[in-house]
């Protein structure tokens, strides 16, 4: 790959190819043939030194790779022309995303070409980070990591998988440590725990496409979730099935998925379990579905949740609950999904368990919830994260149990609630290394920053935690030469780290590319799909970007775990720090396309804002676009409010993403970060952070202002026009059959 790129056109000539300057435009308008506007000898053109046969100037070539914009790891194709990657699209060979790509994936190129990337190693000296050479940086690493006690060393990453994950494990082992904090703000860690306990598998396949009805308890599966493109593809099938699927979304704040629901119900935050119990009550006691496998304590909990009580607590009308429950039995198989709102409570585990119990009662397990099988390469599987590790890390840092930490792919200083006191705690860690692409909060607090290649210039393998129809390893290959001379691949850095510890073992690998070639060669023949030799296997893998692996068969169990009686929601306003498909947990705040893409529901751009129900706002004397102060016990944030009916009256939502104090020109000092004011409540069973459990008070501090809060779209209604026409499903059945 890198050979093909060596003869790329020189950069200046690109600029000229692209730039349509004012002067050019003006001259181009000139009409007289005598004043020829095209000058010869002004532009440079650099020939290839020795081109590959398939590289033709002026013709774009698509290369397969893997997206790392979120943890889903979709397969991508990148269009490369004259040595530059221009556009990313989904890889049709990847069964995870079937050639589709979400907005975050599309914007990957902007991360790659971002003007604010770190372009050389930075070392802290005299309080400031100053550029140093790699030699110096590596020498410091060698010195510091050599001196550290293995037990006081840790890695802190985001979701990580594939061979990089294996190498991280190896490095930890070489260091004599076992502490690998994996942190993701957008996660389903609590659900995974429940799945593990109830189904015997933490990442079962959720077959939305097989369901005839979905009841989602705030699962924003098409929005900011663990694999949005995959589930959106399944949703499309769910909707276009012979019998059009019915989506009921129950959540306190309308999510992207909620926007597409047939029935959207605003539930009081924190009362999801009550509703689930109420529905179970109806199923068992009214519809008389069998209660096989339900423990007695749970059964009595169910019986104590009669419909009137449930309706009162949750704020969901009784007849709605009855109707939805009725439909669930009529439209089998169905699927009941727990979402972030259900998980992020002090009793998140109980809530998810109550919700998943419905699947058990309805007999969905095995029908719409399938086993994802035994993945044959456990060492490559994704290390999925949550917020528990963040809390653990903060704890460890505070109690001074860490001397050296390497950060990669996660930004805990941004995502940690201020109440954890992480920034102070981290100061106690003697040596903090950030392997980072951007100057984010965490890397700017590190003692040593190693600039890493973007995923479009790097080698790697990714294993999606939630696999598509076929289990696969996704290959990540550089789509172009490094943009900045002084950045290095993550795998290469890992190898360097390992060579510093166990040189004899890793000296044979010149670089990560060599390591991967070797690792691929060592893969069992079954995976190689009858490739004649290792080279052919390698080339095929690069070409398709996907190595399909047959996963071993496995059966799901379906048992209901015991759980405690659920809480009944907070008394005041509950803060919902909602992640958006786009800026996600804030990692994409530096991508201007995503900042300029309006929020799907509230249509706000380039800002942070609070969403409230008009009735709540009226009670508090707040008008649309007012400046408000949202205060929790931990602090407050000041931002503008946008009134949205897609809210429960007891909730106030502040989307995540903005509020960076560092992160390049597009993100810095824009908006506020609601994570900062979260209470550090722990989920009782899993130790995750209960992100949706913070009670806040809201006060108006400033008048409405049209200019400060920018919303796309002038009208909330179609004003009598036939823009989005709607038909009842019966009509669809009439015309297109069912």
């Amino acid at each position: 790959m890198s050979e093909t790129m060596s003869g790329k056109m020189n950069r200046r000539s690109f600029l000229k190819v692209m730039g349509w300057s004012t002067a050019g435009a003006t001259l181009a308008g000139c009409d007289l043939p005598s004043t020829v506007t095209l000058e010869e000898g002004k532009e440079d053109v650099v020939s290839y030194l020795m081109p590959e046969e398939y590289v033709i100037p002026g013709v774009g070539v698509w290369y397969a790779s893997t997206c790392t914009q979120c943890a889903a790891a979709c397969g991508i194709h990148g269009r490369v022309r004259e040595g530059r990657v221009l556009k990313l699209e989904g890889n049709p060979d990847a069964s995870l995303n079937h050639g589709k790509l979400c907005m975050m994936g599309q914007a990957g190129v902007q991360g790659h070409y971002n003007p604010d990337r770190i372009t050389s190693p930075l070392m802290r000296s005299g309080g400031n980070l100053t550029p140093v050479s790699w030699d110096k940086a590596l020498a410091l690493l060698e010195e510091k990591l050599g001196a550290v006690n293995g037990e006081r060393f840790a890695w802190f990453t985001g979701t990580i998988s594939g061979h990089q994950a294996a190498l991280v494990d190896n490095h930890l082992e070489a260091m004599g440590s076992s502490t690998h904090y994996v942190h993701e703000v957008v996660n389903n860690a609590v659900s995974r725990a429940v799945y593990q306990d109830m189904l015997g598998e933490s990442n079962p396949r959720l077959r939305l496409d097989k369901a005839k009805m979905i009841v989602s308890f705030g699962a924003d599966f098409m929005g900011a979730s663990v694999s949005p493109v995959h589930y959106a593809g399944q949703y499309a099938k769910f909707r276009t099935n012979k019998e059009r699927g019915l989506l009921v979304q129950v959540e306190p704040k309308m999510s992207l998925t909620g926007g597409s629901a047939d029935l959207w119900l605003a539930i009081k935050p924190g009362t999801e379990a009550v509703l689930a119990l109420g529905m179970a009550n109806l199923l068992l006691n009214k519809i008389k579905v069998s209660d096989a496998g339900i423990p007695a304590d749970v059964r009595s909990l169910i019986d104590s949740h009669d419909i009137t009580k449930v309706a009162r607590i949750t704020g969901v009308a009784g007849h709605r609950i009855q109707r939805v429950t009725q439909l669930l039995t009529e439209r089998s198989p169905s699927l009941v999904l727990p979402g972030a709102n259900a998980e992020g409570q002090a009793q998140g585990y109980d809530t998810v368990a109550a919700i998943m119990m419905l699947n058990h009662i309805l007999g969905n397990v095995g029908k719409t919830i399938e086993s994802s099988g035994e993945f044959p390469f456990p060492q490559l599987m994704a290390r999925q994260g949550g917020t528990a590790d963040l809390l653990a890390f903060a704890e460890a840092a505070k109690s001074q149990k860490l001397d050296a930490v390497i950060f990669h792919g996660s930004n805990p200083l941004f995502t940690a609630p201020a109440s954890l006191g992480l920034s102070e705690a981290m100061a106690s860690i003697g040596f903090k290394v950030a392997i980072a692409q951007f100057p984010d909060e965490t890397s700017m607090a590190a003692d040593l920053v190693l600039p890493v290649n973007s995923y479009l210039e790097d080698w790697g393998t990714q294993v999606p935690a939630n696999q598509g129809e076929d289990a696969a390893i996704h290959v990540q290959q550089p789509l172009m030469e490094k943009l900045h001379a002084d950045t290095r691949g993550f795998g290469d850095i890992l190898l360097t780290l390992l060579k510093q510890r166990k040189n004899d073992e890793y000296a044979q690998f010149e670089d990560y590319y060599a390591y991967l070639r070797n690792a691929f060669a060592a893969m069992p023949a079954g995976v190689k799909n009858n490739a004649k030799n290792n080279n052919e296997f390698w080339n095929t893998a690069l070409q398709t970007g996907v190595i399909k692996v047959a996963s071993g068969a496995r059966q799901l169990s379906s048992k209901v775990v015991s759980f405690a009686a659920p809480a009944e929601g907070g008394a005041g306003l509950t803060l919902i720090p909602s992640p958006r498909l786009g800026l996600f947990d804030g990692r994409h705040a530096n991508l201007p396309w995503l900042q300029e893409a309006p929020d799907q529901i509230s249509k706000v751009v380039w800002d942070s804002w609070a969403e409230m129900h008009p009735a709540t706002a009226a009670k508090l004397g707040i008008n649309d676009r007012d400046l408000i102060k949202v205060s929790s016990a931990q602090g407050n944030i000041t931002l503008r409010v946008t009134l949205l009916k897609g809210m429960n009256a007891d909730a106030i939502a502040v989307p995540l993403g903005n509020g960076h104090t560092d992160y390049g020109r597009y993100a810095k000092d824009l908006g506020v970060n609601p994570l900062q004011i979260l209470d550090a409540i722990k989920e009782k069973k899993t130790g995750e952070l209960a992100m949706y459990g913070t009670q806040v008070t809201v006060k108006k501090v400033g008048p409405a202002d049209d200019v400060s809060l920018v919303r796309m779209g002038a009208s909330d209604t179609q004003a009598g026009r036939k823009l989005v026409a709607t038909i009842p499903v019966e009509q669809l059945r009439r015309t297109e059959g069912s």
Partner: protein
Amino acid sequence: MSLDNILNHWSDYRKGAEEGGHHDYEHRWAMAINLDLCIGCNACSTACYAENNLAVVGKQKFEKGQAMHWMRIERYWDQQELEHPEQGASFLPMMCQQCGAATCEPVCPVAATYHTPDGLNAQVYNRCIGSRYCSNNCPFRVRYFNFYSYYESSWPQPLEQQLNPDLSVRDKGVMEKCTFCVQRIRTVKDKAYMEDRKVEDGEVTPACAQACPTSAIVFGDTMDENSRVAKLWKKHQVERGVYQKTRHAKKNADLRGYRIFEELNVDPSVMYLERVREDV
């Protein structure tokens, strides 16, 4: 020559849209967008930014209404009277509808926008003098004007390396709009020409249709009867041409296909399929 030409082809030159216009169309690119599948996720819009060198204008200019999103997702709330939007939102991907009888065309003083033999509503950036009449006469409001020169501000180095060399970066004073990714059409047509064959259905996919996670957007050539889009148009009995024609063509009023502002007789090339609602 002119006089000859006029006399010989007079009747041709007097043909309007009703008789198919003066073009012998090579293609008539069209779309069908299933609103029941549109989840409003913005993937299409972002893909459009990536493909078509769209400028990012920033908060202030966005506030002024100077954003450049060729493809925008409009979000409407129906059932305003309810306390909560119980049927969710209504999303509408809106881009240039490539009208057959486009109102933007006849008003351009310099013929910078015109109809191509591909059935596209072309915008020749170099010819545009920025009178903005086209945009004023567009009922869909999908033409975007370069109120500033965005080259420096929108693509600070090295972001400009991402720019697609297959189409221009527009400078200030120029109108622009969705082109159905004409550069992709052009590439595919060139390829087909080099291979002495016709363009196949599915060979051209605009960035938005390509990206759409739910495949709500179907793109193709309505002149190719076997194309997916032609079949969809036919199935939903939406015909090209003016309102009266279409209305009479529609024998089954229950069918979901419709075109926005059909009554304005602009003959859009985008057919939407109605969103389906199930009352619970």
